[in-house]
């Protein structure tokens, strides 16, 4: 029987990864080194903060400018504190922390539809009708969250953004979605703990009965969710959501907007032990008037937020334990359309990754003079998440088993980016 090759997982894709790892080390030796590294790293409380740019940010105007090209747009590049790396003139604060961040300027991801791109970048897999892959935050929740017994709040928090599905890992690894105001609806039961215990005892009898009547997975996962919800309601760790407890100086540094507040909450959450926080910033789908929107609205907030978070983590000595990833579902067309906008573009764009004890101050890969294609080696979402996994101490060789017993490669067999981990 010939099985059709799943879209996005063709032979060439596989060979490319094989070749890239084999080129540096004999493959087996490489894998065993990664595993040894993972055991070492997991002993520390690692975390990842994903800055999710919903709609697809024009990275050609932010991280990989093309001055002099017809596609170059209205902005000029400026120097950063890393010699040789230039970014947009409207990112001056970030330019001063570039030595703690890195850019991957050679992303090439093919999916230029919002839904498909969002799925692909969050999971490393293209959508496939037979299985729902877990978003990377759910993978971290499963791999690290379950080992943090002292953690009462969810291991995967998403601020201002819905993030993605936990897929075959199940509802207990779904993102806990909150707004950046830090208020958790209905978290106060207004009764004492004894009363809650009595209610839960009664409920447990009914729940168990239904589970035992053999109705599949959903009734079981319901029980897990209640356990988590009760932990959350009764925990001191709820304070992590209360960003108004921060000194005004700190909140001002992050910015009085949803993105800044979200990043501040993310820092408080990872301090509390949450291993994965996603912070959403929308409004990047700039089909028209891209430069005006960037200069007056998007970039000032983005610049302030990234710089404040990087500095704050660094000053607290947390930067080496917290991976920062910045991405959207794709980049935007190098060509400027008739509405002075940029459309969807997945073939050549940039992802920012920093912190986490990776190599900082790197600009990896490049695009051609007009920004329309990657020159040399390109990277896929799985490679970014493999790099983050490396920093988090999750072995990238790990296999999960889907509910139908099918072995599933973690992050689609992505390989850590060599320049960031060596």
């Amino acid at each position: 029987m010939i099985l059709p090759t799943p879209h996005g997982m063709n032979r060439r894709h596989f060979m490319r990864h094989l070749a890239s790892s084999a080129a540096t080390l004999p493959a087996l030796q490489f894998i065993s080194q990664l595993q040894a590294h993972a055991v070492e790293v997991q002993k520390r409380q690692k975390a990842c903060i994903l800055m999710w740019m919903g709609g697809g940010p024009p990275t050609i105007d932010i991280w990989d400018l093309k001055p002099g090209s017809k596609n170059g747009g209205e902005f000029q590049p400026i120097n950063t504190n890393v010699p040789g790396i230039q970014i947009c003139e409207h990112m001056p604060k970030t330019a001063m922390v570039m030595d703690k961040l890195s850019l991957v300027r050679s992303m090439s991801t093919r999916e230029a539809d919002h839904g498909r791109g969002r799925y692909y970048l969050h999971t490393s897999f293209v959508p496939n009708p037979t299985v729902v892959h877990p978003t990377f935050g759910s993978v971290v929740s499963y791999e690290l969250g379950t080992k943090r017994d002292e953690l009462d709040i969810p291991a995967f928090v998403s601020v201002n953004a819905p993030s993605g599905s936990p897929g075959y890992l199940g509802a207990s690894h779904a993102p806990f979605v909150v707004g950046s105001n830090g208020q958790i609806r209905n978290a106060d039961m207004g009764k004492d703990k004894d009363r809650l215990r009595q209610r839960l005892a009664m409920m447990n009898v009914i729940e168990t009965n239904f589970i035992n009547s053999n109705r599949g997975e959903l009734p079981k996962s319901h029980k897990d969710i209640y356990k988590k919800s009760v932990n959350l309601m009764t925990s001191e760790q709820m304070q992590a959501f209360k960003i108004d407890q921060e000194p005004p100086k700190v909140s001002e540094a992050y910015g009085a907007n949803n993105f800044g507040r979200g990043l501040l909450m993310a820092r408080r959450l990872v301090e509390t032990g949450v291993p994965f926080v996603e912070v959403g910033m929308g409004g990047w789908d700039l089909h028209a008037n891209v430069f005006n929107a960037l200069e007056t609205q998007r970039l000032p907030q983005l610049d302030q937020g990234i710089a404040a978070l990087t500095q704050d983590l660094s000053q607290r000595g947390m930067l080496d334990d917290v991976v920062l990833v910045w991405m959207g579902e794709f980049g935007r067309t190098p060509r400027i359309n008739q509405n002075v906008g940029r459309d969807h573009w997945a073939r050549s764009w940039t992802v920012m990754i920093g912190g986490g004890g990776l190599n900082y101050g790197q600009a990896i890969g490049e695009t051609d003079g007009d920004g329309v294609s990657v020159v040399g080696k390109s990277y896929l979402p799985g490679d970014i998440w493999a790099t983050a996994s490396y920093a988090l101490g999750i072995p990238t060789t790990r296999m999960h088993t889907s509910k139908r017993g099918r072995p599933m490669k973690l992050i689609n067999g992505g390989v850590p980016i060599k320049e960031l981990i060596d």
Partner: protein
Amino acid sequence: MHRWNLSSNCANFLTVGFVVALACCFVSYSTEVAAARRPSSNKKTASAKRRSVAKRGASTRVERTKSSRNSEPFTTGWSDTIIEFINRQVRQAWEEKKIQSSPVADDAEWLRRVYLDIAGCIPPAEVVEKFLANKDKARRSKMIDSLLDDSAYVRNWTTIWTNLCIGRQTPRRTSRRAMQKFFREAFAKNRSWNVVVRDLVTAEGHFEENGAVNYLLAQMTMRDQGVQATAKTIRLFMGIQVQCTQCHDHPTNDWKQDQFWQFNSFFRQMRRVDHRQYDPNTGRMVDDFSELVRRDLAEEGVFFEKRSGLMQIAYPFFFDTEVDPSVGLDRRTELAKLMVAGGRPYIAMAFVNRLWSHFFGYGFTRPIDDMGPHNSPSHPELLERLAMEFVQSRYDVKQLIRWITNSKAYNLTSRVTRTNQIDNPAAGETALFSHMYVKSMEAEQLYDSLIIATGAHMSGRSSWDQSERQRQQWLRQFVIAFGTDENDETTMFNGTIPQALMMMNGQLIQNAISAKKGNFLHSTLSGKGSDAVKIRKLYLATLNRYPSRRDTLSATKLIRSRSNKLDAYQDLFWALLNSNEFIFNH
């Protein structure tokens, strides 16, 4: 324009009727009344009439006796050649996969399910009791009929299609109220689905006067030359995903970029006009009304850009059918004609697939709106036959629901047995429908069910608009947008911590268990009867079944162990409402 004046008059007339009907009670009890009236009544309802037409010749009311139950094939009391065909096709797949179906669900399990699926809420306790005492062999098929005649059916399907067409977060300058009014009329009159689709695709005019325009207005929040309207129309009504072909040929099927723009060229005559007015109170201009108008095109073709940067031109084609490209010809009307033409058009396939998935939790393809040669259906013959019959019934939505819900598969229990464990679509397997799949309730279903279970519908005399407003307000906490220009959104609802927190501590539940004078818990507790009687009432209201002897024993024990009886009953009610058995449709 005459046409629209006429239909908006009808709509107004209907709305008055609805408000009156709903003012009496939130979810009507006409269900039981209708069922009781049926045998003696000379005046048949429209749907009953239609059914008797469809029944003629082929259908049979099968009388079963207890002794023959095992050997006789299952029936709800009504069958016809199409239901038999469904049963045969589904059974054939079981045989091929060497699995056996689960037993037929008992009446309580089935009633709760059919209520949730057709009426959008759980059955009231008194309906459950009557149904469980009913010995009529055709009680299931009669229940289906009466639910289809209930105003709750109209409300449920209005909710479903309003959400599909304009989302839960109504875009700015879109009238949710008028969109709902359009669907309320469509489902109340059981208008043919092809006519509904035609009205939505061809709509013009004022957004309150012609509710149908809100579908397209909601896709026109950006000046995107009808791109979103094109993609959404093909996806929602034809079950095909083409949004990525806006920019390039489809990666996995035969769709080409030209085709997207050929379809798009049908939508290029429409313009949204947003009127503003002066507000004397604030001295500012504020939103007045919006409308959709048709303007002649400047030229016949539409231009689009190939990946290479080359500009190309596209003319109106519906697949291979060329349409007169004259600039003044109303292209959406031409499109609507082509969409509904033929013996088994896409709109029929897409609707059958969506409806099947509504009732079983899984459709014939995954996802249901990505059909095509790259995604072959699990039961191709069944899908095609149902689509064909749907067209031949003149797109009779209620009839299609009747065929599905009277089938054996729909009547099976959700208990998985050893002989059909492998039928587990949640794990990625092809759905074989050998047992019912447990479904999560939609947010609206849960809200309406909580209202029923806690008796909140008995006290308030709220109008349709009022209760709808309260419901929308409650729903808002669970919807999150993705931040793209396509207005896509997701519900952070099922199986999440926010949902659990809402069920444990939310205002709705607090009110329900407060035992305030007049509410369900208060009247249950102040009524006569032993603990066992009261426990039974709580079970009937929430889980819609009698408690088993074990249920009663453990509940009694818990209640007797507490010094404060009211506290104990409140806690039992809380526990029932929060249980998995309540929150799932099974």
